[in-house]
């Protein structure tokens, strides 16, 4: 097999989290009864006109500033004309030649820690279409126009990605970013964040891109990765068997894990784009841009850098903990409670026990059953040696299920560590007295039996003996002191 290089560009559609639609006053909430959120404008009744939602523009500008892009002083809404039942006007209002957000870039970090910059060609505002419904309707299709007119930001990348992993890392990074900016809820099941992937392959070293296929409507990170894998394999196989890739739109079928042809370039619609005469050019002034800039939160990369430097965390840990604003805020609250010198301990617990508990119960960080102050309280008991790290895990489980704080659980269950040297020594003496053979063997050189004695003491103290003290005392006593 020759050495093929994969080239990927993504078009990501992020649904903007405005309360009303991009060109009408109807609500955008998900899951309402069909057509209950479709106004006369969304239904494209004769005579109605679109009016641009300023909030959608503000969100687009916010995104543009976050990726360091040029914000167009003047951008144009255009009509993309085609007939489909879920497209009531017979055209989609989008932006074509002059988008609101120009060229920008984001950095991604790969698993091996390598950083890479992915270029963003443009981002533009457009309206979503409705949905066709086929289930439960015999010989008919239903149309739900609740989603029609929902604002979308289409973010178009450069063909800068070279593997499915890079594509997923890029998509995750954007997913993090739009949620940081609070311009998109990122809910992929509901279609709030979805992606089309342009995939091609070329012999490594060749400059010219291969012919690409566009895979439509990928709505999970896993599907993006699998669809690209399948598509790359398909194209390589095709090329190696002497065939050639045709430019076409393909659909990923997650049940069969394959991509299928939807339509080729020859069959593609001629969308007949032209400027929408119902909407004036969108003019964005310096002042507006600066007012939006003032609302920018700390961005993921900034937060990760601050965590890494301020708390002496690894780049990996800092990246994980800054993956969402909520997680970052939780972590920082835990650090506040336990003290900055113990940030690494806090990081381990947030990424370890807390994350697995959340995963196990399918909860979001905001629904965590242990709040950061309480977790900080638990970690303090490790720090001050009230309990061992091992006992702390049990306490955490109890806090999670019972909702009490660490101290109450430690007291109620009598989990406080035994740190009284005399008390530990007494237990050791009793254990040694009960196991004369093992003592003799140990003294004869069977060092491994040290662990046996530790286990016996821990058993006798229900694990509460302070491990460090136990270690020291036991070693002395076994040594005959």
């Amino acid at each position, binding site marked *: 097999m020759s050495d093929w290089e994969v080239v990927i560009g993504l078009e990501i559609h992020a649904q903007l989290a405005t309360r009303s639609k991009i060109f009408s006053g109807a609500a955008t909430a998900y899951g309402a009864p069909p057509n209950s959120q479709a106004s006369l404008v969304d239904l494209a009744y004769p*005579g109605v*006109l679109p009016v641009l939602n300023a909030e959608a523009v503000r969100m687009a500008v916010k995104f543009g500033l976050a990726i360091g892009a040029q914000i167009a002083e003047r951008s144009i809404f255009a009509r993309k*004309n085609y007939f489909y039942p879920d497209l009531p006007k017979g055209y989609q209002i989008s932006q074509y030649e002059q988008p609101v957000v120009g060229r920008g870039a984001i950095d991604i970090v790969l698993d091996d820690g390598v950083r890479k910059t992915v270029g963003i060609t443009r981002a533009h505002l457009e309206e979503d279409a409705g949905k066709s419904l086929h289930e439960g309707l015999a010989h008919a299709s239903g149309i739900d126009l609740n989603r029609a007119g929902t604002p979308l930001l289409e973010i178009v990348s450069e063909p800068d990605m070279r593997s499915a992993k890079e594509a997923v890392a890029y998509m995750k990074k954007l997913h993090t970013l739009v949620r940081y900016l609070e311009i998109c809820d990122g809910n992929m099941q509901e279609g709030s964040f979805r992606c089309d992937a342009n995939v091609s392959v070329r012999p490594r070293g060749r400059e010219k891109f291969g012919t690409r296929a566009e895979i439509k409507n990928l709505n999970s990170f896993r599907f993006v990765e699998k669809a690209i894998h399948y598509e790359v394999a398909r194209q390589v196989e095709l090329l190696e068997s002497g065939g050639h890739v045709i430019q076409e739109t393909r659909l990923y079928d997650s049940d069969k894990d394959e991509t299928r042809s939807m339509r080729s370039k020859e069959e593609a619609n001629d969308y*007949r784009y*032209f400027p929408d005469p119902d909407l*004036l050019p969108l003019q964005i002034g310096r002042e507006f841009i600066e007012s939006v800039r003032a609302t920018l939160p700390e961005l993921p990369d900034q937060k990760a850098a601050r965590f890494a430097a301020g708390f002496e965390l690894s780049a990996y840990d800092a990246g994980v903990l800054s993956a969402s604003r909520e997680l970052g805020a939780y972590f920082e609250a835990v650090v506040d409670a336990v003290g900055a010198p113990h940030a690494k301990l806090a990081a381990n617990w947030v990424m370890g026990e807390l994350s697995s508990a959340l995963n196990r119960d399918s909860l979001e960080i905001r629904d965590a059953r242990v709040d950061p102050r309480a977790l900080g309280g638990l970690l303090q008991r490790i720090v001050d040696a009230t309990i061992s790290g091992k006992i702390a895990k049990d306490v955490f489980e109890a806090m999670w299920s019972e909702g009490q704080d660490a101290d109450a659980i430690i007291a109620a269950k009598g989990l406080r560590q035994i740190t009284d040297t005399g008390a530990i020594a007494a237990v050791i003496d009793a254990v040694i007295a009960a196991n004369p053979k093992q003592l003799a063997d140990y003294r004869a050189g069977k060092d491994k039996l040290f662990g046996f004695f530790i286990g016996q003491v821990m058993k006798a103290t229900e694990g509460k003996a302070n491990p460090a003290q136990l270690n020291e005392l036991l070693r002395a006593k076994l040594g005959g002191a």
Partner: protein
Amino acid sequence: MSLENHPKDAMLHDRSIGELGALLDRGEVSSLELTRHLLARIEALNPVLNALVSVTAAQAIAAASLADRRRAAGESGPLLGIPLIHKDIFCTDGVRTSCGSRMLDNFIAPYDATVVARLKAAGAVMLGKANMDEFAMGSSNETSFYGPVKNPWDLGKVPGGSSGGSAAAVAARLAPFATGTDTGGSIRQPAALTGVTGIKPTYGRVSRYGMIAFASSLDQAGVFTRSAADAATVLQAMAGFDPRDSTSVDLPVPDYRAALGASLKGLKIGLLKEFSDGLEPRNAALIEAALEVFRSLGAETLEMSLPNLPLSVPTYYVVAPAECSSNLSRFDGVRFGYRCEDPRDLMDLYKRSRGEGFGAEVKRRIMTGTYVLSAGYFDAYYLKAQKVRQLITNDFRAAFERVDLLLGPTTPTPAFAIGAKIDDPVTMYLNDIYTIGANLAGVPALSMPGGFIDGLPMGVQLIGPHFAEARLLNAAHQYQLATDWHDRVAPGIT
């Protein structure tokens, strides 16, 4: 055509808006009486003229009664209780809004257009909806699904279009005013051919919300009246910013009636070389006579040129169909309007609903528009047309640095026979040769009666700079104080 009238009502339909307002204010007539009188007149004359496609008698009686109660409660206003007819392109809540098309023959609008709402709020009483060319595409009112409108001056002649029903209704004294829309001359041309006054305001002066779109960048609502003074009264109520129309302009509306007294001394009027070249001699004589009237009122006249103006018609017939091809996509048989019987599948539903719902002229323009926007043709047609449009706009701007108004003919000829041009689209399109420029540039223009050719009325067109409606209306008003063309009534109509 004659009509039996109660002596007191005998001349009621001949009264201007101003006169009717005074009668109503003095209690000499009620809106209900006036409304009943005009409804009776419509009942008698409309079967011949076909000017209205819907008569909303019950709503009119209710609205007139309401207007009378408002007046009794001390309210007053120049349109309170005054009847009107709306072009059937304006959505009217609960009333069929057909746009002259089979496609919308069954369409009951669920809301009022802004123009309709504003006139309703002013107390005007809708008598019915006026016939029109289908989707406002036509210059003769012959493309209507409901059949041609007859010109009250000669029932064998067209009234012009597309607002032919509105023009004929005002000319036949069925209502003191009627609304219209003007995309390439659809108010001014029928106003000229029926002997009434019609104004197309500046693009953006009147809201387009609720006005079924033909060509969005050109469409503008206006009004037909029997005088410029009445037009000032109605435009006052219609004009103004509307947050629901992004292309409406947020500028204060001047007091048009207050502007009607100004002297024309020193007013500079330009006569366009492009309009005079090749003008039919009798038409040229009417234009010269109108200029003479203005000179006698103290205006100065000078010849000038708008070099790109001759490109108006081809430019228009690229831009307007392009926009219409997209605007009319929403008529797909899915959510409202005409749907074909038993569609086999989605494509069949689209093709037959549109194929059966639209008439020939609408289809011609959709196809033309689709073509000029297509990949490979876009630059050569649409983009080129937009550039020419800008040049034409620049020509107008330059002209208005030298003159206050432009004057010229509204149409090349008087009303032509029904059926004479309907099979020859290009000849039909050339009817709009003098009117289209103002739409492309977005400037206001009006047509006022200026004489007769072969016993048929002819119009004189005045064009002004953006937002100079007050100047236009005053110039027309001064002209109408000095002439009586606008008072002539079609024989047999009284």
